[in-house]
């Protein structure tokens, strides 16, 4: 069967938009879903599971639109804005691999990070990670549970 591609690229989608699409079809984190669901297929669920672990799972349409509007002042390429929304970098070292030749273009890294902090919701698993880090640290910091005695 020959299929004709009318438009190979009819628009880029952020992870959030794809997650939104799957949510509107009825995807959920319920464990009985894979057997019961008629509207969301198994392979779509794999995408859903992946996206729920990324920044997209805590984002809202409002925050994503506001963020890309405000990004216009930072001289970023569309692909870079998309990448920032998808990854939600919270530090210099997380933002730099996304940008192409940041030094030559005089990009305001601090400004972008501040905007991310202000407009995009934090990552979903960040809290769980931080708790693990505290327990393993050698500085003698006590995990929260022990101090509440």
């Amino acid at each position, binding site marked *: *069967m020959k*299929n*004709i*591609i*009318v*438009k*190979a*690229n*009819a*628009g*880029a*989608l*952020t*992870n959030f*938009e*794809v997650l939104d*699409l*799957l949510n509107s079809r009825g995807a959920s984190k319920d464990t009985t879903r894979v057997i019961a669901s008629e509207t969301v*297929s198994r*392979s*779509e669920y*794999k*995408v859903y*599971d*992946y996206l729920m672990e*990324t920044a997209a799972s805590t984002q809202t349409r409002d925050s994503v639109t506001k963020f890309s509007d405000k990004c216009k002042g930072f001289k970023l390429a569309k*692909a870079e804005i998309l*990448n920032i929304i*998808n*990854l939600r*970098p919270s*530090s*210099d*070292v*997380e*933002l*730099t*691999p*996304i940008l*192409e030749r940041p030094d030559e273009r005089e990009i305001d890294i601090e400004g972008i990070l501040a905007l991310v902090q202000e407009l995009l919701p934090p990552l979903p698993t960040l809290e769980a*990670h931080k708790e693990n*880090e505290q327990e393993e640290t050698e500085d003698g910091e006590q995990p929260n549970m022990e101090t509440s005695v």
Partner: protein
Amino acid sequence: MFCLSELEDTVRVPPSDLNLPLEVAIKKALQKLFLDKVLSIGLCVAIYGIKSIEGGFVLPGDGAATYKVVFRIVVFRPFVGEVIAAKFKESDSNGLRLTLGFFEDVYVPAPLIPTPNRCEPDPYNRNQMRWVWKYGDDEFIIDDSCQQIKFRVENISYPPVPTERAEDAKPFAPMVVTGTIDDDGLGPVSWWEACAPISDDED
């Protein structure tokens, strides 16, 4: 990493589905045809929506109705230079293999792993090799314990379907993404959580 693509195709709705509302039946047929398949534009992940349906003719000798449908699909096609978070899948002497759950053919070849490094047989898994990065006095192991590994896309290739294959060859991958973890902020996320304060001092 996702984008929309518009396609036009001839879709056959089997007689058993003809009692369903037309859009539902066509969507079902489209899903069967395209979902989880690799086209020249990438991996088809979901049907976004149907734009137009034409036809509905029943061809002689066939009980099914044939429609000409214009529709949009969501395609996984990362762009070169994009940074993506993935999980560790396996590693061997050629390099690492990472997975995104729905897409498992992300390869980081040995030259794109930060140097100096070494490859050693994995003590926990006899068939695998393990990669270790040496930075200063510390050694960082790349294996299953890494929660998330960030890589940057270097290249996407669509190898042609092989006509002959050896018995024990890996399952054929129609779409292969090659990535690098050799840069600031790339590689296992845990490497950089500890490093963030150090980079501030250097500035």
